[in-house]
């Protein structure tokens, strides 16, 4: 199966909506786990826009940028979840408003 001919602006519209959902989540949640999930959603929306552009011009570059975004997301989540464990151990909370003092 090849691919479908879909209006590019519909895909970009979906990517923009997903991105703003992630941005909303990042702003309105105070739990750091949900903030990390929102970051994942935002990165995924950006990747969707890149793959759509790659499909529009029939080039492999979009999927390669998707690979790079994937590695960025993996590294970010690994470090972020390590930080979550440290924050829970030191402050006994996941509320980012109470973890505003960056001293050990």
């Amino acid at each position, binding site marked *: 199966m*090849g*691919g*479908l*001919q*879909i*209006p*590019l*602006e*519909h*895909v*970009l*519209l*979906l990517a*923009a*909506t*997903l991105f*703003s*959902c992630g941005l*909303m*989540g990042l702003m*309105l*949640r*105070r739990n750091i*786990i*949900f903030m990390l*999930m929102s970051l*994942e*959603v935002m990165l*995924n929306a950006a990747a*969707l826009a890149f*793959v*759509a552009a*790659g*499909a*529009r*011009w*029939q080039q*492999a570059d*979009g*999927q*390669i940028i*998707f*690979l*790079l975004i*994937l*590695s*960025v997301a*993996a*590294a970010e*989540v*690994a*470090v972020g*979840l*390590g*930080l*979550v*464990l440290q924050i*829970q*151990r030191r402050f006994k909370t996941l*509320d980012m408003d109470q973890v505003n003092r960056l001293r050990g």
Partner: protein
Amino acid sequence: MMESLFYIAALVALVATVAALTRSNAAHALIYLIVSLLAVAVLFFLMGAPFAAALEILIYAGAIMVLFVFVIMMLNLGETGDIRERQWLRPRNWIVPGVMAALLLLELLLALRHAPTLTSGVAVAPKDVGLALFGPYVLAVEIASMLLLAGLVGAYHLGRRFIVRREGRSN
């Protein structure tokens, strides 16, 4: 007819994402997030990017979500976390940034309306992706590998102290 598959998957992705980010229970949110990632993988496949679709399922819905599951299990939040999260989700905390983000989205949607064009409808095979990846983009591969190494070292450093302290406390 086939195009409706795309719109159904897009709807699933949107609904699952909104549901994931408004749950108060982290484990339930994670399941919705996995559904959303699977729907985006379907979108990739339908747009003619099968390699990206496979990686989306393997790495996003597989590896990264498993990391989240492990951390949620280690934190062991339970019912108290559920109640506390519901208290944190009061509307007065998020209504103003929400309205402003919605305005920015509206502007973006209006700007996107003036570029009517179709995707090519031809799949880009994994072979082409691999050829481009190790041809002109080989430096990007090296940079990604260094980034992953830095992430590995950082995660090990942060997590190791957690594990050592927990073992010391149990003794």
